[in-house]
């Protein structure tokens, strides 16, 4: 292939697009959600409320909270982490509500996703972008 200026530009653009879409080792949003739902479609929104800060100065400890009325289990995913799974909360018979909160690590600026499994077996997702100033996964 003759490396003309036009070709070179196209290559560069394609490479840049790949890097933006797929940070090293990270799964896509759909893949990560599917791994939780077992291939089932997940509806966005619903009653699911995911609370996370817009900007987290320190990615080592980012507070996240979930309120998922009618859910039996909620899984947190951090799509931009080396391993997107974060934690799964299963609510037992004595759970007083469907709320829970914890603190998580985020490697970089990314979307935090909550996937809730509802009582009827369907799935809902909620997403929030968190800006991270200092990454929290070592390296």
């Amino acid at each position, binding site marked *: 292939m003759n490396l003309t200026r036009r070709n070179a530009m196209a290559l560069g653009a394609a490479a840049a697009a790949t890097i933006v879409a797929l940070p090293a080792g990270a799964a896509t949003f759909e893949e990560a959600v599917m791994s939780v739902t077992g291939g089932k479609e997940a509806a966005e929104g619903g009653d699911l409320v995911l609370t996370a800060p817009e900007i987290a100065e320190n990615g*080592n*400890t*980012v507070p996240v*909270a979930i309120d998922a009325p009618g859910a039996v289990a909620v899984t947190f995913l*951090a799509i931009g*982490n*080396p*391993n997107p*799974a*974060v*934690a*799964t*909360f*299963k*609510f*037992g*018979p*004595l*759970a*007083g*509500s469907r*709320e*829970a*909160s*914890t*603190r*998580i*690590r*985020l490697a970089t600026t990314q979307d935090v996703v909550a996937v809730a499994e509802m009582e009827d077996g369907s799935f809902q997702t909620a997403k929030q972008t968190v800006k991270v100033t200092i990454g*929290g*996964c*070592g*390296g």
Partner: protein
Amino acid sequence: MAKGVKPRVKVPKSASAGDSITIKTLISHKMESGQRKDSDGKIIPRSIINRFTCDFNGENVIDVTIEPAVSTNPYFQFDAKVPEAGEFKFTWYDDDGSVYEDTKAITVE
């Protein structure tokens, strides 16, 4: 057993029967993710708490599966129903097989 592991739990001393109460738990643990490298460039092996459960009089309140992305000193907050007086039992499961436990009694007014 990982060193210096100390569970801390905050539960109200009493509640009305059938009430829902908020529980906060924290356990000091370094939660080594298995992603970090030491000064020689070798990967520090993963060592985390991988599961946390809370039960009340033998019935489950919450069961959490934990991955390395949960922060150092894992903190959890959740709500529990209190149908009668009894005891909350909190259990943390370490990667190395250790199990850390704490209990808190609650009375019903």
